[in-house]
């Protein structure tokens, strides 16, 4: 069973912008696209840990601000010639609220 946690309103994030949620395991970047789709990824580029939340978003990808790696927001995978992936989280939008899957948040602890 999925248990979703309300983390804020869709309009709290500007279109093509991103904001962070702080967790015990580090920051998660929550992205809102031009078309109001929401994605959540670890805020660390697989390359050198750059804060993806600070990058420029285009389509459903974000360009890392440190070295221009392009990360697919849906899969978390680096695009083009670069290889690597960042952890993604299940999120959804209901009635203008952004909800994140609590199970996904707990997973890193369970893995220990």
């Amino acid at each position: 069973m999925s248990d979703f946690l309300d983390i804020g309103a869709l309009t709290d994030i500007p279109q093509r912008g991103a904001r962070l949620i702080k967790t015990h395991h580090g920051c998660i970047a929550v992205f809102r696209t031009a078309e109001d789709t929401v994605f959540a990824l670890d805020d660390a580029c697989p390359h050198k840990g750059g804060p993806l939340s600070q990058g420029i978003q285009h389509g459903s990808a974000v360009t890392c601000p440190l070295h221009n790696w392009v990360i697919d927001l849906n899969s978390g995978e680096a695009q083009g010639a670069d290889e690597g992936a960042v952890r993604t989280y299940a999120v959804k939008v209901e009635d203008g609220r952004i909800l994140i899957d609590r199970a996904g948040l707990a997973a890193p602890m369970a893995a220990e």
Partner: protein
Amino acid sequence: MTQKLVVIGAGMASGRALEHLVETAPDAYDITLFGAEPRGNYNRIMLSPVLSGEKTYEEIVTHDADWYASNGVTCRFGEAVTGIDRGRKVVTTEAGETAYDKLLIATGSNPFIIPVPGKDLPGVITYRDLDDTNAMIDAAATPGARAVVIGGGLLGLEAAAGLKLRGMDVTVVHLMGHLMERQLDPAAGYLLQRELETRGIKVLCGANTKEIRGDGKVEAVLLEDGRIIETDIVVMAVGIRPNTAFAPEAGIATGRGIQVDDTMRTDDPDIFALGECVEHRGMCYGLVAPLYDMAKVAASNLAGSEAAFAPVETSTKLKVTGVDLFSAGDFQEGEGREEIVFRDATRGVYKRLVLEDDRIIGVVMYGDTVDGSWFFGKLKAKEDISDLRDTLIFGPNFAGGAPLDPMAAVAALPDEAEICGCNGVSKGQIIAAITGGATTLDAVKALTKASTSCGTCAGLTEQVVAATLGDDFVLPEAAGMCKCTDHSHDDVRRLIKAKELKSIPAVMQELNWKTSCGCHVCRPALNFYLVADWPGEYQDDAQSRFINERVHANIQKDGTYSVVPRMWGGITTPDELRAIADVADKYEIPTVKVTGGQRIDLLGVKKEDLPHVWGDLNAAGMVSGHAYAKGLRTVKTCVGTDFCRFGTQDSTGLGIKIERLLWGSWTPHKVKLAVSGCPRNCAEATCKDIGVVCVDSGYEIGVGGAAGMDVKEVERLCKVETEEEVLEVIAAFVQLYRENAQYLHRPYKWIAKVGMEWIIETVVEDLPRRKELAAAFALSQTFYQTDPWAERAQGGQAHEFTPLADLTQVAAE
């Protein structure tokens, strides 16, 4: 034995269900139809043409008195049902009770009224039925009457267009970033907004209504940002909610709507429901196609044969005469999804197909929708389109043929459009030269002088020549800005001015961008070009800026930031130094360093501390040093005549004046200056973008120096005698650079392209032109010369600096 069927609600869904029922089982039921409106069923979708005056009410009636009579339907219109007693199987109205064997609830939906002060004032109108429509028509009868439509969705825009046709002054207030965001992507939304604006409808997107004001009736709408729009009526068209009416009290299972199963039965097997009032598998419906499907299913089950409702894809069209728009399926981007985008700027056409696994899953079309149903058919059929893919976007009539003309944007320019700004050459003059016998690009250039000065219009000139000569011309390969466009930076800059493009969606549409919202290469460039070309008019797009310019600090490898306060001309004071030291202590800033530009750099600042750091620095009188900007960075100075025994002029004072002139300006790349007080050049002015070296008789100005990846000495621009002239020449030079250079080209690269000769002619020798450029720079500065730190220290852009949520508190459970 004939059973009694009672139908509550005489709208389109129940109307269609009754049609099916009397057709398949004419004698099964004795039917009584209640309707809250004092009239029978009419085509509610066609209210918009009634509003605009293109149709009359009589033309949209679907079931008249004759129909009800000949099919034996007892009509009780204008009689609202107030309750049901399921135990005794009766419905209650003012007139009494009516018994049923089977009940069909089709109460439709209620308009959603946003809960703002003034929502109940006379003059606030919803848009659901004929009475609403008539109220709007009445309001429009007063000459000069004004209307505000809240909601830029399907219904709101139809209302706006209708009211405009009736002569009203109409403003649409829409909460989201673009119109019809549920059906359209931003590109199509832009085209729609442009079309509505050309019809004289004002459109405010991203506008949140705070209050409806008025004394006894509507007088104005107040927006969250403080804007006030005076108006006579307010049309509330923000959405609908299922009208579950008495169902919850009657104990019928209700969620957002009345819950039904696939047979359209509620949890009471004798009670059916359909239309906008129901919730089926968690979904509520508002478009007519699924409602008609429900009607068929409900009628079949009422007639005794089994049928099940299965929702299908629906498409949307906007019913505004002259607006062609089509939307279907899911057009969000996502993993494994691809898109095919077609744009024809001249005709205002935009088509986008979203594909997944070689199947169409979404269609957005604007301007030319004739192929909409063809695409929609393939979408519904989940047809594999891999064989058609190359030409799919061109629709069913296309097979093979020539690829799209990449020069469409150029071909569409009017004859008077200026191609070469330096020499004032229009497209018409180039065509005239060609019809006059010039058959090569060089001949055209020689005759017209087009692209022979600064050269930035070379590509454009070539395209005009190519378009005019046709097959006789071979277009040389020009590098596009990025993968999103074939246009070069220079062409884009020229076309932004020639076509007066004033937003990023406008540029992308008119210049046939190949992606829907660009990429990290073109978006910052376009944002700069628009900032530079349309000061005061263009709305800066923060999301198109690199993070450093968005948060006004430099990102470091560990995600922290560095902060550099401005020190005019490199001069500081003990108080400023104390304030910097205090800030470094207070926020535990690990590193404090002196930069090469005579500034102090605070390194390792946490992002959420930035506004507080700035607030403290502001309080000590310091502003942003723009050490992060593609803009004016620093003016480095030596101490000049104040202290130096060799100084010839007040180099420090002049440096401060230059910095005060230039700070806050956005440029294609960073700009660094220096002023040295004598030719010993202690400020290293000869390797700067602009360097001033003072001599006894005046000031030597050099430009195009570099000391980065390339090392270059400045080239001499001119020598002037007064500080005023220095300031004017520098302002003119910077403005020329802003207007012409390619994004991310430092001045030396730009100069190499356009030639020092032309720059000297323009900035030094042509005095009127120099003054014009300096004035243009001054105008631009009135908009951009503000301290970005102050705004953010006071709480502006807070979303950039605070987390959305802190789960370290809750996730611990």
